[in-house]
């Protein structure tokens, strides 16, 4: 049987952040918070990254072959029905990556304190290369 050692977990610098989240002691609450974070967070990310790219909802809709009304729904924090396939298409339109991974609640708490636009913005790949090489990169 494979075992996984949780090494140095107690030394995680973000673990202490859970002390500021007393409500999370209740499993029902922290699970509900996780769901709210996903529903609202995804909508928030789409909108920020679209605006940062100076893209209209219609332009994004065209890129992922859907309607403007669908983009508007996706950016509604109460929508909560984003499919992984759609998110992948949005990531491609943004030329950024999409990462789906399980995280500890301390990581979620830490991420929940970094919701400013600059924290949420996912740079397009070309911009990252420019920053790396110090010159413009064209397609």
């Amino acid at each position, binding site marked *: 049987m494979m075992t996984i050692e949780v090494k140095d977990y107690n030394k995680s610098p973000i673990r202490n952040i859970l002390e500021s989240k007393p409500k999370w002691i209740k499993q029902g609450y922290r699970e509900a918070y996780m769901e709210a974070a996903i529903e*609202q967070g995804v909508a928030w990310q789409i909108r920020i990254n679209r605006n*940062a790219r100076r893209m209209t909802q219609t332009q994004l809709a065209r890129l992922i072959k859907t309607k403007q009304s669908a983009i508007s729904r996706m950016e509604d*924090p109460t929508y909560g029905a984003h499919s992984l396939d759609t998110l992948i298409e949005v990531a*491609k*339109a943004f030329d950024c990556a999409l990462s789906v991974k399980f995280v500890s609640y301390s990581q979620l708490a830490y991420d929940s304190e970094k919701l400013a636009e600059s*924290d949420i913005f996912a740079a397009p790949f070309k911009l990252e290369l420019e920053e790396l090489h110090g010159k413009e990169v064209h*397609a």
Partner: protein
Amino acid sequence: MANKNVAATFKKAPKNNRQLIAKPIEHSPWNFHEITDRGLGAISSWIESANWSEKTRANFDRSIEQLRPLPKQLWSKPNPASKIGDNTYVIRFKDVTAAQLRFFGHFFDGHNSFVITTQGFEKDDVYYPKNYQALAQSRRIDCDKNFSGKTIPFETLCAICCKSTKDDDDRSKRLQQITDT
């Protein structure tokens, strides 16, 4: 293929990739306060009496967190808040039955805070209580006249007040240590 489509979309936009990116508006996170009623937090007391489900509470907490780093001009749809009057704003979230719950309040720039003063709901595009505007404005006037007397931090969402409390606790502990030795 995706890059060609993006290029076509931006054929009239600047060619410099850096110029394609709009600079985010940075803002120091808002503190949250609530109006008091006989010395107690009126909003916290109401929330407790409303017996919200955990899902409703989580929706509300997350809405607040999403709003914290946003400058006032971004307190608008589709973000979970809107300006609905003279320095009067509404925070939107829903409960597990999809009922549209609302909190009304205003900004107090002197404390970099948003003060929640009135609870309500929205149905068929109508806000309740129907006199929400008058209520929110009269409470704003009271709070502006005496911010420290009429409001308290909402939970721990005030970095200024909560830090002061923490500093006081730390000082007390240090004093106790010195006394013990």
